């Protein structure tokens, strides 16, 4: 029985229930399903056997592997399922069929893509994540959200098209669609697939869809969006491009540049979106290093990040729900009316900042150690800078300007109970996986799930279990250095604030590289449209005019009413015809 249940793809279950949920009008029935399904899915996942093809289907002579679990996909899949449960609880106060259903279908598509055993299955669910998630932006109902959703959809679909191109090359050259890791960019299809993943992982200059769409999504939508798309791309990179040196540098840049945007951004959900980029940078960098320690770092970071980033988005969502804005310039002093939200937000903030005893500490440590042990000095310094940067925008700016700082005088009710429950559960996980191992608690639970453990098969880590050294985050050196970094950064904040050197929060739009296509790019397309709108009819009129004039000339000359048909000229025409014929015959005679 358990063998049979273990073959049911939990992701597919979520997708089916999600789509069905869009048609269930009774709020409580629908939401009970939305909460129960991820729980059932988690149970199914625990029953799944590792390393075998659990569900296959044959389409057009291609054997597609719909469900295959190994140590790498397990941790990502489990994180996605936990996130979908938290999201469903967080959404209980709303009655939105489309949002409820699509949120679950989107989560299911991400889970299914994680457990896909071949490129074609990955592609199909890759596209379902794009199509289902766009509704979470559209449901915000504003013009800005509609426009952002269209840009988002365009970018996501483009990523899918690149993936399809890539898999076609792979299939043509190897005759297989397997998810084997690439070893070089020269392999057929590698560049296309890399670009497809890069878009979804929001690499620098491809990142704008994220900061554009997430802050404009619904309150629940932003929480849901923060968990899946980008981490699915991280998983895909870990699966197919581990050890690609280019990723180390791209990841390092990704950690640093959002810090500067997040400092000046006023919309706190957009600050969190930049922060998301920064966090993805750590994971991408670790995948580029590609050693077992680094891959473990990427997976642990992704797991911890899905929970604490969701928690931070939830807390900002709760504020937005009650106050009506998430702009730092309009908030402040909310600890007086939302104490529980304040506490949960602070737990998310210290987790993402990687304070000891919280999840970020045990996750980020592996990446930092892996980068240092491989001797990438500049990259390591960049990541260390970015660690202080995270503390600035997510660790301090988000809680300080929302809940403390200048008292805005806003007094609201505490967040709805379901929101608090979801935040409480997320906060619990942040602490539970961050503590030193005590009893069944602590980071040991997370570390046992990592892809490269002594018992994990060699196919994910390219190394046998015996060669993998266990890692311990709670060393005196690590605690001391991390506390030094963070506490001196906190000291910097207090001094800068005290001496009036901290830039005030001001409303405004911060330009990013999307300015290029949203202003000059859009302007050029609009100009070309205007020019074509005028030049097109003019060209048509010109060509038509020539045709009309030519026809008129021929008609006035040759028609029955024409010049050659009138009076003696009719005879003349016959005569000319005879002369012409004679000349032709003469030429033919001479020529022959």
């Amino acid at each position, binding site marked *: 029985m358990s063998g049979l249940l273990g073959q049911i793809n939990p992701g597919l279950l979520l997708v089916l229930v999600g789509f069905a949920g869009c048609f269930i009008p009774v709020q409580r029935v629908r939401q009970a399903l939305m909460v129960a399904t991820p729980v059932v899915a988690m149970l199914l996942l625990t029953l799944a056997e590792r390393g075998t093809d659990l569900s296959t289907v044959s389409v057009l002579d291609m054997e597609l592997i719909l469900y295959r679990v190994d140590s790498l996909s397990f941790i990502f899949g489990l994180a996605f399922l936990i996130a979908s449960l938290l999201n469903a609880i967080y959404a209980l106060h*709303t009655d939105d069929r489309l949002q409820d259903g699509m949120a679950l279908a989107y989560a299911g598509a991400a889970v299914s893509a994680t457990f896909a055993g071949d490129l074609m299955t990955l592609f199909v669910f890759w596209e379902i994540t794009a199509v289902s998630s766009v509704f979470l932006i559209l*449901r*915000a*109902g*504003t*013009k*800005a959200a509609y*426009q952002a959703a269209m840009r988002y959809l365009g970018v996501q679909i483009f990523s899918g098209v690149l993936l399809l191109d890539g898999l076609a090359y792979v299939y043509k050259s190897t005759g297989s669609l397997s998810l084997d890791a690439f070893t070089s960019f020269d392999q057929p299809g590698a560049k296309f697939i890399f670009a497809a993943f890069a878009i979804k992982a929001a690499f620098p200059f491809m990142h704008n869809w994220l900061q554009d769409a997430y*802050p*404009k999504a*619904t309150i629940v939508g932003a929480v849901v969006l923060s968990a899946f798309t980008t981490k699915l791309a991280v998983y895909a990179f870990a699966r197919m491009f581990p050890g690609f040196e280019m990723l180390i540098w791209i990841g390092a840049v990704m950690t640093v540049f959002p*810090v*500067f945007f997040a*400092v*000046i951004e006023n*919309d706190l959900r957009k600050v969190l979106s930049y922060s998301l980029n920064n966090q993805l940078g750590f994971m991408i960098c670790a995948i580029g290093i590609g050693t077992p320690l680094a891959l473990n770092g990427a997976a642990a970071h992704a797991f911890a990040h899905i929970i604490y980033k969701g928690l931070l988005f939830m807390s900002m969502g709760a504020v*937005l*729900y*009650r106050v*009506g804005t998430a702009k730092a310039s309009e908030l402040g*002093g909310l600890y*007086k*009316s939302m*104490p529980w939200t*304040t*506490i949960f937000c602070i737990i998310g903030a210290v987790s993402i900042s990687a304070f000891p005893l919280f999840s970020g500490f045990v996750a980020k440590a592996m990446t930092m150690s892996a980068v*240092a042990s491989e001797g990438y*000095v500049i990259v390591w*310094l960049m990541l*260390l*800078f970015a660690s*202080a*940067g995270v503390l*600035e925008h997510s660790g301090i700016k988000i809680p300080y300007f929302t809940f403390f700082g200048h*008292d*805005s005088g806003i*007094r609201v009710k505490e967040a709805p109970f379901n929101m608090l429950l979801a935040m409480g559960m997320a906060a619990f996980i942040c602490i539970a996986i961050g503590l030193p191992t005590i009893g069944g608690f602590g980071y040991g639970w997370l570390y046992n799930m990592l892809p490269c453990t002594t018992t994990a098969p060699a196919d994910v880590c390219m190394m046998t279990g015996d060669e993998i050294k266990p890692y311990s985050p709670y060393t005196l050196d690590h605690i*001391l*250095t991390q*506390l*030094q*970094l*963070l*506490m*001196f*950064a906190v*000291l*910097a*904040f*207090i001094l*800068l604030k005290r001496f009036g*050197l901290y*830039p005030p929060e*001001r409303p*405004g*739009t*911060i*330009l*990013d590289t999307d300015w290029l296509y*949203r202003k000059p790019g859009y302007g050029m397309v609009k100009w070309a449209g205007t020019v074509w709108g005028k030049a097109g009819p003019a060209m048509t009129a010109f060509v038509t005019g020539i045709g009309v004039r030519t026809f008129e000339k021929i008609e006035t000359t040759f028609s029955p009413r024409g010049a050659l048909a009138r009076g003696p000229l009719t005879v003349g025409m016959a005569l000319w015809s005879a002369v012409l014929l004679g000349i032709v015959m003469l030429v033919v005679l001479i020529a022959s």
Partner: protein
Amino acid sequence: MNVPPERDSSGRFLKPEHDEPKPNDDDMHPMSKLLFGWVGSPRTPFIVLLLVVLICAGLVVFDLSHNRHEYLDFANANGFYAIWGFAAFALAVLSGWPLGKLLRRDEDYYGEADTTPQDVEQDK
């Protein structure tokens, strides 16, 4: 002698009649009073600063007496993380001044000033 309206006869600035109303703390959440009652105290900023300075000093002193073993040699220097953390944070924050001037535009720059989603609470 003509005296501007905001000054008294001796030319000193008058205290404005209506100070900005102080937000009312009477309806503070009971849990807030319990957990964060200390935040509003005028001495709190100084005490927090003092605590942070003491912790920082403690960390540096401990670093002096402890021999660390880092992968990268220069990171073994006493107080390396402290200096890097302070400098990185200060650089990130101070860059906000020129960057804000350079990159900040009007809220309606892209014609998207209204981004409040429809699922905010309606009957506040």
